[in-house]
């Protein structure tokens, strides 16, 4: 077999939450038997965003905040690829906020994995959009990506996981991958992934996480219910985790953007672009200009 790029040693600090995500990605890809060459991982810039370097798959290191924009291009160019975008909370919710909101709306079948450590790890611990008030002088209310994603009226898959709960994390990631591989649309997972160096929240989060599926009235097909449950959980000082929106099959049967645009699945990257193969069509096109 041809030798491809080998994974390098993770650059993460020992104990970093991102190791949990790496393990879950490996497990999920194994379980679903996704061929390595069909998995394309688009990384953000940050500690978290280097995850693709530690896996044997197609990896592209995007620009800070632009991973979703690049991932969209990858998916639409070749809808057969399983595309995972993975990066940090700074990358996704600060500089990347515009693309983040639009990713729900565009609804390409990409898994987006945010490793939320409530800080900018790689630049040494500044406050991020999810930082609590008081952290490194932060005076802004933390952004809750789950609440906001529930506000966008598109049937996406939405979940939050915790690196300290690898079972749930892996199960949800598998579900998200299945969702996107069935071309059902965009799947967003925010993983609570502590930064042991600048914001070690392992202990705190272990106490605070609340599995939403255990709450009364849990119904991940109903945005209003989930919006309320998540908000109430927050008000109680807890952090809701679990699947927050699981649209029904009927809502999402192959509505992924790539399917809408390319129902025959033969996308830009695999189309025949030879002149011979297209001469009739081209000639007709050009003749129409008079």
């Amino acid at each position: 077999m041809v030798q491809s790029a080998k994974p390098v040693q993770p650059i993460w600090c020992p104990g970093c939450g991102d190791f949990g995500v790496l393990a879950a990605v490996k497990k999920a890809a194994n379980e679903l038997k996704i061929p390595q060459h069909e998995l394309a991982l688009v990384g953000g810039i940050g500690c978290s965003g280097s995850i693709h370097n530690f896996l044997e798959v197609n990896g592209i290191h995007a620009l800070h905040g632009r991973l979703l924009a690049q991932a969209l291009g990858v998916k639409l160019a070749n809808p057969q690829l399983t595309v995972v975008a993975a990066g940090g909370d700074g990358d996704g919710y600060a500089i990347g906020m515009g693309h983040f909101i639009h990713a729900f709306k565009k609804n390409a079948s990409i898994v987006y994995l945010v490793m939320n450590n409530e800080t900018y790890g790689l630049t040494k611990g500044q406050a991020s959009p999810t930082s609590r008030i008081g952290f490194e002088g932060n005076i802004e209310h933390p952004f809750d990506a789950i609440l906001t994603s529930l506000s966008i009226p598109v049937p996406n898959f939405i979940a939050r996981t915790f690196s300290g709960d690898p079972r749930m994390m892996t199960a949800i990631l598998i579900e998200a991958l299945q969702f996107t591989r069935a071309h059902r649309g965009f799947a967003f997972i925010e993983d609570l992934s502590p930064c042991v160096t600048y914001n070690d929240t392992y202990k705190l989060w272990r106490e605070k996480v609340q599995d939403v599926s255990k709450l009364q009235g849990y119904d991940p097909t109903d945005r209003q219910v989930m919006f309320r449950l998540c908000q109430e959980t927050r008000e109680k000082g807890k952090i809701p985790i679990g699947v927050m929106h699981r649209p029904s099959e009927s809502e999402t049967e192959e509505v992924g953007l790539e399917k809408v645009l390319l129902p025959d699945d033969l996308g830009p990257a695999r189309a025949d672009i030879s002149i011979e193969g297209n001469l009739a069509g081209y000639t007709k096109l050009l003749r129409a200009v008079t």
Partner: protein
Amino acid sequence: MGSEGMPRPPAKILADLSVMIGGQGGDGTLTVSDLLGRYFRKIGLYVYTSRNVLSRIRGGHADASVRASIHPTAAVKPEVDVLLAFDEEAANLGSKELGPEGVIIYDSSVFTLSLPNSYGFPFATLVGGQVGQPIYKNTAAYGAVSVLLGMDEPLTRGVIEERFQRRGAEALQKNLKALEIGRRAAFGVPEIPGHWGVQHGEAHDQILSIGNQAVALGFVVGGGRFFSGYPITPATEIMEYLQKYLPPFHGVVRQAEDELAAINNVIGAAYAGARVMTSTSGPGLSLMTEGIGHAGAAEIPVVVADCQRVGPSTGEPTRHEQSDLAHLAHLGHGEYPRFIIAPGTVLECFELTVEALNLAEKWRLPVILLLDQALCQNTVTSPPFDAAKVKVERGQILVAEQIAKMMEYKAYKLTETGISPYVPPGTPGVWAEITGNEHDEWGHVSVAVPNRVQMMQKRMGKMVKAQNDLPKGNFFGPADAKIGIIGFGSTTGPIWEAQELLNGKRVATRFYQPRTLFPILVHEVDPFLKSVDICYVVEHNYSGQFANLLREAVPWHHQKIKSVVKYDGHTFRALELVRAITGGA
């Protein structure tokens, strides 16, 4: 003449004429110029139309002009023969450009004029009364002009049918009625009918197109299959044409949420193996700066069409300029290779878009297709585009059989040419790391010193090694002329015309139209500058940006380089160039 009411000499037959149409935005000036352009093309003339509109939807002064000639032309005629004015401002502005024998036709329901050779018709009132909607006044005015120029009646109607049939029967009928109203009114004034004649031409093989359309077509035929863009004047039409053209060919067009998304969308798609492009203008281009640099560092082939308009900042969105060149040549923090190629005609827009796609994939880097507002939006006759002549060259994209023979696949393999063969994701049995961080051959992040130096030399070396692969310049005029002219993009048209005018004055000039603006092709420029005593570098910007690039690349010729610049939002007139070159009237 005319206004005296005396029997006239036989009508003068024009072989090169210009009609200018002016009014308020929304008056339909562009429609009249379009109709006239279609007509003239049908009688075998070469046609060039230009526009002068504001960045607002209705109101404000707007004008357009149509030139028709038995000779190829891509420039505004120095003097206007017929001025069609829908309001007083248009009459005042336009009359400054009117030739001594020029005729003004105006809408007398709005204002009156006491200039010689001016004829008022109450188009709006007439049409308002008889068609019910005064907005069709422009078609009536077209009718009056058709009478003035002795245009063939069925063909005059035919052009309207061609243009309006898509809009439905009612719109078509109303336009035809307005046409009749205009013609009847014109026949009522004795000096008008057949005042002039228009010579028929031989250019029956030509099509009528704009640069933006040619770029869109070149993209499709060149194998482009993924486009993402964001609306911006004067680039939007490229996206709009592609929205129509691409889907039947398994292509995708996305209107992105902004230009940051657009450039990164195409980077992702190119990474995945598609041929891609985005198009924009100044403000959007500035926003793409980081993305284009990423393509340069990660060696991802993207084409960026820049439809230049007046800068800086929001500037004058609808006006013409060529002031992004210096920015593009030095675009982005750090250093990476890029090619900037610039078509000078609509046909070249088609051809060089294909070439841009080929070059990007062959050399694996960003290619800038540098356009300008006049080239993008002005209608001009062109030889038709021929798909059979197009060559799609993908460079070293490896297919399954080639891969099977390989021991290893390194996405950034160091090679003689600096080009690393590429395998898109999804190809069985291989994968790779792609990154804009400094990396080793495997795509792994590396800050090792020898690797850094090699990788910089690999990437930057492409700009030297590719020189013979880059679009060659065109040369016009005698090789022994001692006066040189350099100009690119839409200045080619006015320069050709200036060369002819200078020829008439026995001033021989040689015009070098570079089509690769960056890197400067020293092997072309150096002999050219050697061959002349002086060289005028004609461009639409303040600083003389191309002249500056020349000073940097061939400083030993610096004494010969003279900048001729214009930065007022309007294209050069041939006479301005003649004056600049002869140093007087």
